[in-house]
């Protein structure tokens, strides 16, 4: 057993005692009741369980939680799907996902949403040329599996958000 403390969606949690073999996914879902993060394949292959990890250097990346021990997140700051909307107001990404009917069963949505959010934040600091945008989105969402609507609708939704504010995300 170890005690972990971490920040989730800006809120401090812990110290909380966790078993050494407890996965981060079980910690979020079973210990904290944050069921927005899904358990998919259990082998880091579908990334439906991915959350955003914010590094102290200001960069962020997604990380699967099904194959990572909760202990590994001690001292870290993460964001889950529950942290996107605030005061009932959806983000532009969430609205675009709905507008494009990007998800059907919704199991993969949390992972896609987190990945797309990381992409937007990266583009704010490292904008790309319009010609490179399609490939940039493809590479960013690569690895996330969706079995319902396919990937085109997610891709189009993310592209829409970026093209709505070209000065913010593009060169």
């Amino acid at each position, binding site marked *: 057993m170890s005690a972990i403390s971490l920040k989730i969606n800006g809120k401090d949690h812990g110290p909380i005692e966790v078993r050494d*073999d*407890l*996965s981060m996914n079980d910690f979020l879902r079973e210990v904290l009741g944050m069921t927005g993060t899904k358990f998919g394949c259990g082998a880091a292959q579908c990334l439906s369980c991915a959350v955003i990890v914010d590094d102290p250097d200001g960069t962020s990346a997604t990380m699967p939680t099904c*194959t*990572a*021990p909760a202990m590994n997140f001690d001292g870290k700051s993460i964001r889950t799907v529950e942290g996107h909307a605030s005061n009932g107001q959806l983000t532009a990404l969430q609205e675009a996902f709905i507008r494009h009917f990007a998800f059907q069963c919704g199991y993969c949505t949390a992972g896609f949403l987190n*990945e797309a959010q990381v992409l937007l934040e990266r583009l704010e600091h490292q904008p790309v040329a319009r010609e490179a945008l399609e490939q940039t989105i493809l*590479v960013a969402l*690569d690895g996330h599996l969706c079995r319902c609507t396919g990937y085109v609708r997610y891709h189009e939704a993310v592209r829409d958000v970026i093209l709505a504010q070209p000065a913010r995300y593009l060169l």
Partner: protein
Amino acid sequence: MKSDCKRLILAFLFSCAAIIAANLMAGKALAGSLRLTLAPAENFAGIANAKAHSLALFAEIGKVLTSPRCMNCHAANDRPRQGDSGRLHQPPVFRGPDGLGLPAMRCPICHLATNFDPARMPGNKPWLMAPSEMTWEGKTLSQICVQMRDPKLNGGKSLADLVHHIGDDELVGWGWNPGIGRTPAPGTQEQAKALVQTWVDTGAECP
């Protein structure tokens, strides 16, 4: 009708048990085919002929080099392999320019600092593929030997670098502590280092 149902259930259960047993036996057979021990370098000291001595040492080192713990990351086609059977890595990841994967699928995203056995996830810091010039997959032990001792073919490594890599590198050392479900590399890292050092000392001969 009830007895028919019972028979069906029993038949189903027996089938399941047979499948599980067959899988377990297959796994055991695979594990059994991997060599677990390594002869210490001193065992070869009695070989009088220097070349034969060096060749015998390399044959022993070859047990480590061809272990799935080494081969899976010294894989060809920029795709790592996994498991004792050396199947292609799933999810489909690729070497990338720095050996740490492509931008959206970086190795350390899943492979953390240590093994996480509950999820069968191996880990070490760092976790990356061997450089492309050190690809061994599909090569004979002789070809591997020629490649690894020649700085022009191995990315500029000296023989001393090789001893250090096999004997002291932390990621190589993981091969002897691979976590649940993976057969460790034969012997110990100390034994492997001694064998490579003695092979170098005896002329680094290749079969």
